[in-house]
């Protein structure tokens, strides 16, 4: 059914939202062969919406004051009508957000979505990951439990040791000698502000996607309209189905396993005189925590933990091969899964006490992570035979 040539309407002549929507979200040409891994971007948008909505309603009932923060969170869990649901949605949302984020990034690594012309798409995405990490850290401090307090103490002290910028940044966040009321208030504002800053960068990320068009499992961009499908109804319906499955996992976490990934010690109010014996990071920070512990040097550990992310930023220039998907690069097809395994092993190690075995596992895994990105990728792109 060809769209009849109509004279543009009143709204269209002033603000062409309808035609932009039609062009970008209905007729937008998508590759025909996207697989389920391409749905994780949609999951991230939905989770982010859930985080912002639940976060706003939580903030209505939260008090950023060290004498009342813990009690206000308890009141949300117990007395505020439906407060338990909003809080679980927010806490479960962090897990879903990071899980989708890591899978989304792994997908880009596997199918080479970071290569020209999508470098800026990749970099805005990594920027989003860093922003989500800062937001998650600041948000975790807000309930002012034991884990909040000691996690924040350790992180802020770590930031303090960074040469040059560390001291001013940690002083800016702390606003005083020790972690106290000023810091809590600042981290609350940081958490709140970052959430909306993330929205803005998501807009950039999506805009970049609509300029360079999505990558696809073959790594070869479609050239003719015959090789594409319109976004609606094909990918809207498929994402809708995927979203239902995703929401079932999310709901399972919220309604049936609310304590699965929370640390019980955070239900004890912060006490600056006692560090909990069993101090652990949340699972999504565990890989970086494992690196921090595996290096027998404070600055060295910090640099390697930051470096493990920095190599991702440098990836478009480390991997010069024009071939995108790992499936068509025999060596990368071996090396990259090992890097994924290394990341997971680091995560598991970070959740365990630093025994000799786990230290060795962490060091081997960390070594492979860096070897893959800094040695394998540049060398392979020089002299590989792609299929």
């Amino acid at each position, binding site marked *: *059914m060809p769209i009849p040539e109509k004279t543009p309407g009143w709204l269209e002549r002033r603000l062409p939202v309808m035609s932009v929507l039609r062009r970008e979200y209905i*007729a937008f040409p998508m590759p025909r062969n996207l697989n389920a891994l391409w749905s994780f971007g949609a999951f991230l948008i939905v989770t982010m919406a859930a985080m912002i909505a639940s976060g706003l309603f939580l903030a209505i009932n939260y008090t950023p004051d060290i004498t009342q923060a813990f009690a206000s969170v308890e009141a949300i869990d117990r007395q505020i*009508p*439906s407060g338990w649901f909003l809080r679980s949605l927010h806490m479960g949302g962090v897990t879903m957000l990071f899980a989708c984020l890591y899978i989304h990034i792994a997908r880009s690594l596997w199918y080479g979505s970071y290569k020209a012309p999508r470098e800026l798409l990749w970099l805005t995405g990594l920027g989003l990951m860093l922003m989500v990490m800062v937001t998650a850290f600041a948000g975790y401090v807000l309930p002012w439990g034991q884990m909040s307090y000691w996690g924040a103490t350790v992180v802020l002290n770590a930031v303090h040791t960074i040469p040059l910028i560390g001291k001013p940044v940690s002083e800016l966040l702390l606003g005083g000698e020790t972690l106290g009321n000023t810091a809590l208030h600042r981290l609350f504002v940081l958490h709140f502000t970052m959430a909306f800053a993330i929205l803005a960068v998501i807009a950039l990320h999506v805009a970049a996607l609509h300029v360079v068009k999505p990558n696809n499992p073959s790594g070869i961009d479609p050239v003719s309209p015959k090789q594409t499908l319109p976004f609606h109804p094909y990918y809207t319906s498929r994402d809708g189905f995927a979203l239902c499955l995703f929401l079932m996992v999310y709901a399972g976490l919220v309604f049936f396993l609310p304590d699965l990934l929370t640390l019980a010690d955070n239900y004890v109010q912060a006490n600056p005189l006692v560090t909990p014996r069993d101090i652990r990071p949340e699972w999504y920070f565990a890989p970086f925590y494992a690196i921090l512990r595996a290096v027998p040097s404070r600055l060295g550990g910090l640099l390697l933990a930051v470096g493990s992310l920095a190599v991702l930023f440098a990836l478009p220039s480390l991997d010069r091969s024009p071939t995108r998907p790992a499936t068509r690069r025999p060596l990368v097809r071996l090396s990259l899964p090992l890097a994924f395994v290394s990341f997971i092993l680091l995560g598991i190690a970070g959740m365990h006490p630093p025994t000799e075995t786990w230290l060795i596992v962490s060091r081997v895994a960390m070594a492979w992570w860096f070897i893959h990105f800094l040695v394998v990728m540049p060398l392979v792109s020089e002299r590989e035979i792609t299929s």
Partner: protein
Amino acid sequence: MTQSETPPPPGGTKRRDLLTTATVTLGCAGACALAVPFLNSLKNSAATTLSDRTLEVDLSSLAPGQDMTVQWQDWPIFIQRRTPQMLAALQTPGHIATLRDADSKMLQQPKDATNWHRSVRADYGVLVGICTHLGCVPSFEKPGSAPEAEGGYFCPCHGSHFDAAGRVAQRAPAPYNLPVPPVTFLSDTKIRIGHSAGDPGFSMSDIQQI
């Protein structure tokens, strides 16, 4: 993309339409249901029963012509000890003619305060100090400073004017007299605010407006 709309197999259209309608309808219903807990959380969770709290006030230090303010149920309560001059001023016909509701016809007080002095005992006045216009707290002008009304309440926000018995003046924007709380005299110099011996069924939630 126009090719994508090539005729679907006959019979399929109807099923797809039904399926699409069902999915979209159910999806929207789910989204609406999701809004419920969010709005629910905005409800006032602390539905405290304030009305059964009472406050006892000792009036022995209050000299004639003096006034004091106490807090009851988050409201300022004005207590004044009236002089014979003040009581006389409340009854002058010239003054009464300037009032909106001189006979307290509006339910703004318990039955035992529905009288010309709007209090249980004429020599003590007890009023909720919240202007019936838009909720500011009026200030008490001592008898000497406001000769025409022998003392009264003036609201700083929009100039509403009440006499010493809390009756509102016609020239002011406030629509009703100041509310009178339920009061019981336990002795000559001690009152209990929150319960009225003369009108036990009275509740502050029944009055026209605070």
